């Protein structure tokens, strides 16, 4: 065999690994850095809640105190510390937010990818997704939560089950673009099975979308959890931000003790805002060359 003639020279070595530069570029944005910081602080609060504050229980002597050095966020009508309630509520909110969002991601990704690649399944999956999206979610969640006995687990399942359709739709639309790429045909001609194509060729292309989805879905799940808890459908054994608001409303202190509603509301706001900003910025920062094409 004659030596091959190389007329096209190889390009000079590529710049640093794109993965790392992408992450540092993402984190270097002030909004992102701040959001990630908020999320990290919340995560630390959630994990180390027992070390930061005692679990609020029983009645205390200081009733309806405004914020002070002893009670940073004030106390409620039973004399319980609001700061402790918010810290312990972070735990419930984050657990339910993350777990429900993971459940939604797993369901949504599986259904979205299957719909994108297996054409006959697509019609069925699209109809189911559309029906789910058209359902009035909140009333249904309220109904379901009222029927089953409320606990962190059931709340997670209910919220996760109602959150997957949006993920499925997102993943499907990106998956459809990838399924139509010629390299998928190339893999099919080589004899790759549908499972291999979906998991090895299409899935890696939607991973960044999944990261975005986890964050956005988690923030919606946190809101859903707070809403359900405020309506009295939360886990009675676990503190949650919604439950603090519910207590304020139930005891009638909502009109006089502003601190009892302000701090849990701020916690919800910060967590949801941080997760949403981190998610949308991640979406915006994705390198187009390593995405879609």
């Amino acid at each position, binding site marked *: 065999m004659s030596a091959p003639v190389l007329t096209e020279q190889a390009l000079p070595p590529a710049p640093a690994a794109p993965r790392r530069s992408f992450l540092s570029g993402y984190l270097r944005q002030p909004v992102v850095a701040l959001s990630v910081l908020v999320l990290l602080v919340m995560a630390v609060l959630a994990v180390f809640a027992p070390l930061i504050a005692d679990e609020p229980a029983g009645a205390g002597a200081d009733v309806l105190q405004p914020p002070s050095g002893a009670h940073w966020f004030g106390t409620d009508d039973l004399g319980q510390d609001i700061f402790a309630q918010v810290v312990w509520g972070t735990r419930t909110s984050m657990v339910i937010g993350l777990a429900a969002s993971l459940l939604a991601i797993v369901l949504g990704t599986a259904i979205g990818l299957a719909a994108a690649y297996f054409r006959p399944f697509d019609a069925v999956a699209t109809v189911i997704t559309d029906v789910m999206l058209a359902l009035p979610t909140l009333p249904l969640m309220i109904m379901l939560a009222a029927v089953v006995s409320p606990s962190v687990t059931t709340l997670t399942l209910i919220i996760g089950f109602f959150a997957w359709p949006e993920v499925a739709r997102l993943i499907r639309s990106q998956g459809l673009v990838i399924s139509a790429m010629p390299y998928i*045909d190339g893999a099919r*001609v080589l004899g790759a099975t549908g499972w291999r194509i979906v998991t090895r060729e299409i899935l890696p292309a939607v991973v960044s979308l999944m990261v975005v989805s986890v964050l956005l879905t988690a923030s919606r799940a946190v809101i859903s959890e707070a809403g359900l808890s405020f309506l009295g459908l939360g886990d009675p054994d676990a503190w949650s931000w919604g439950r603090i608001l519910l207590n304020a409303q139930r005891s009638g202190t909502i009109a006089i003790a502003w601190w009892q509603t302000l701090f849990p509301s701020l916690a919800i706001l910060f967590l949801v805002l941080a997760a949403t900003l981190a998610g949308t910025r991640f979406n915006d920062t994705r390198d187009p*060359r390593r995405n879609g094409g």
Partner: protein
Amino acid sequence: MPPGDEVVLRVENLVKHFPVKGRVPFTSGGVVKAVDGVSFDLRRGETLGVVGESGCGKSTLARMLVGLEQPTSGAVRFGTSVVHQARGRELRALRRRIQIVLQDPYTSLNPRRTIREILLQPFEIHPDVLDRRRRIERIKELLDLVGLDPGLHLDRYPHQFSGGQRQRIGIARALALSPDVIVCDEPVSALDVSVQAQVVNLLERLQEELGVAYVFIAHDLSVVRHISDRVAVMYLGKLVETGPEVSLYESPRHPYTRALLSAVPVPDPAGRQGRQRILLAGDPPSPVDPPSGCRFRTRCWQAADTCATTEPPLAAGAHPVACHFPLAA
């Protein structure tokens, strides 16, 4: 290696109709007859060029040959197997024997995979072909075979290569399982002219070394002439003329072939003087509702009444033509 007499791929009356949705819901708007009865034999180590204008069904034909598209009727036979009826182990075996080189080198390689991963993929799908430890060695061999430096490239991504280099990688992937037939679906039409020649020459060299047979689909007549042993001309889903490259190019017998050839630019001003150019009027008719009889009659300058009523068969012989009034050789 000169083409042998053994037929590796036999295409029998292949038909592909795509249903079209009608304007009114739940009605049929007819069918697009993308490929409408194509038959040919491909011999070992031979190159069959398939030419035709856009929309004549070339790519649909290519996709059926490799099993990406299910034919409406007809068969593609490889040895004793029928490509579209094979299942399981038989299908896996067939996949190894028939491969494809895709048109666009920019989208035919997964942008998220390194060259190493792309070239290892065939062996991961068919793990019995080659022992795990020998695979990297084989990849380097393949890169060397397609004229890329085997030492440099393995951990780069496709976007770090030029179009010509990517197409070489695509060819290496197709060659990985040592197929008998490679279907080339416009493998050079997305490349620069200077790179086209390199890739075509590479394909020719690989054929000499490996004895692989090509179905080479293109709309560029000079490229097809350069590489093909035999050429088939396609019009609206049918073959109108097939023949050895020399006789088809030197003495085309179908009016459509003559018209196509007269449109090829001649790079020599002196040679243009005595040349007669045939300009075909209009666009090809719709494949949803092709003309009766001979499909070319609406644009043919020698169409007669017979042409509208009787469809000319592709007559047998060394240089068959589907025309009632074939041009003199």
